[in-house]
């Protein structure tokens, strides 16, 4: 089994103006179903907690510090999760089940390199 990081960009969390409450609630139900399914099938690793809004960006040799948001809403990293899957193809298939696409979001699937202690 290999590990993959799902980087969520954009989606319901960043869309402007925000969808009305009922739409957000119904959208959440799809997320809970999707994440719940991944957890149940043992795909989800314990990852970092959810991201807060805002933050800072440090950039350049002059180490300029600027406020977030950093990018257009659809490019903004809106969440991270680490999953295990047998192959990149399987990981991609899992990512296709994500409801983020309803709000023009994307999922970047990145294989994590395996690190062996002592080598």
């Amino acid at each position, binding site marked *: 089994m290999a590990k993959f990081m799902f980087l969520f960009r954009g989606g*319901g*969390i960043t869309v402007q103006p*925000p*969808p*009305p*409450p*009922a*739409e*957000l*609630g*119904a*959208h*959440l*139900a*799809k*997320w*809970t*179903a*999707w*994440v*719940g399914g991944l*957890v149940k099938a043992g795909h989800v690793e314990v990852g970092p907690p*959810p*991201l807060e*809004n805002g933050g800072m960006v440090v950039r350049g040799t002059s180490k300029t510090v600027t406020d977030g948001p950093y990018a257009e809403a659809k490019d903004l990293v*809106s*969440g991270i999760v680490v999953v295990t899957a047998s192959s990149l193809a399987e990981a991609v298939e899992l990512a296709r089940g994500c409801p983020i696409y309803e709000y023009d979001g994307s999922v970047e699937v990145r294989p994590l390199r395996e690190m062996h202690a002592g080598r």
Partner: protein
Amino acid sequence: MTARDEHALAVLFRQESGRLVASLTRFFGVGNLHLAEDVAQETLVAALETWSREFPPNPRAWLFHVAKNRARDVVRRQRVRRGNDDPVDPDDLAADPMREQDGDADVLRMMFSCCHPSLTEDTQTALILRLVCGFGTNEVALAFFSEPAAMEKRLVRAKKVLADEGRLFEPTLHDEARERAAAVMQAVYLMFDAGYHSAVAAEVVRLDVASEAIRLALLLANSRATTGPAAHALAALTCLHGARIPARSVAAGGNHTLVPLEEQNRAHWDAELMKLGMSHLSESASGAALTVFHLEAGIAAQHVVAASVEMTHWAEIVRLYDLLYAKKPTPVVALSRAIARSRIFGPESGLEEILGLEGRERLDAYPFYWAALGDLAIRQGKKDRAAEWLERGLACARTDAERDLFLRRIHSVAASKG
């Protein structure tokens, strides 16, 4: 984490949005309504972000806590930006804090504020749907079959009226509150009516509008500031009609079709709502007051306690309609009374009465007028006449559900003619 139904979460988000907006509005002041709406919205987005991984044991407390912290941050930021002469002083806010247990009182304040006398009844109801029930502008538009852009304009103007008032209305202020309470009850009544009649609200939001009206009517009946015979009667009325909703419209081939009273499966009526409605009805009798709500609730009660159309206590219903007509002399009430009378005196006299109604021409565009005539003609065995009237009804039907009702009737009349 359990799988949660989309509709249940949609309803939860809407209702909690209303509570958050109400509490945040008190915190920020009604002049900052937009700020309250923004923070409520951000709070729900934060929930979307967090709850997909871990659903909180107490969603309401979670939302309230997050909203409160965000509200404090907003004030702090404003204070920093403007220096210490900010009109919103956090020390004042500490004296009037956001407390979750005040949620219902805040919702009441907001409902009363929405019923500002310079707004029309429809606008008051629309504003309650938007601010108290958390409906999006498009959903409010669907609830009134109006254009979203026009509804948005109307809501923006109405919110400005609220903001200009400077403060939220206190339901405990005696004299003024009594007057305003009547408007609040009327708004909830109109909301229920919109949700109950498929011709007023689009099918996608109709049942949610009706159940929100039931929720608010119960809140009015159960709150110390607003309870009383009229509030109990309104609660009874919404519950007793609401109890029949599950049998009143059935899904058939992707469409909803209306099922008339005599064809409804009474086993599908909501027993819980019936019980609740009957208990509020008996509480509503605690004074001398006899409002329109009392009479309409009384009529609804006669229907839900009856085992069948034949075993319905029609004489009592006619008596209640007589009293109702005295208070609300509309052609629709007169029509309903005539239909009830025809159950006692037969279709002949029913037809005679309906065709002789004062203001009958005002019913020409009302499909249920033609439905009533058609049904009476069927009971008389006059099929040609029935078909003619049902065709008139079909021509003015306003929704697919209504058209479907007429088509089925016309079809069955034609089939029985052989």
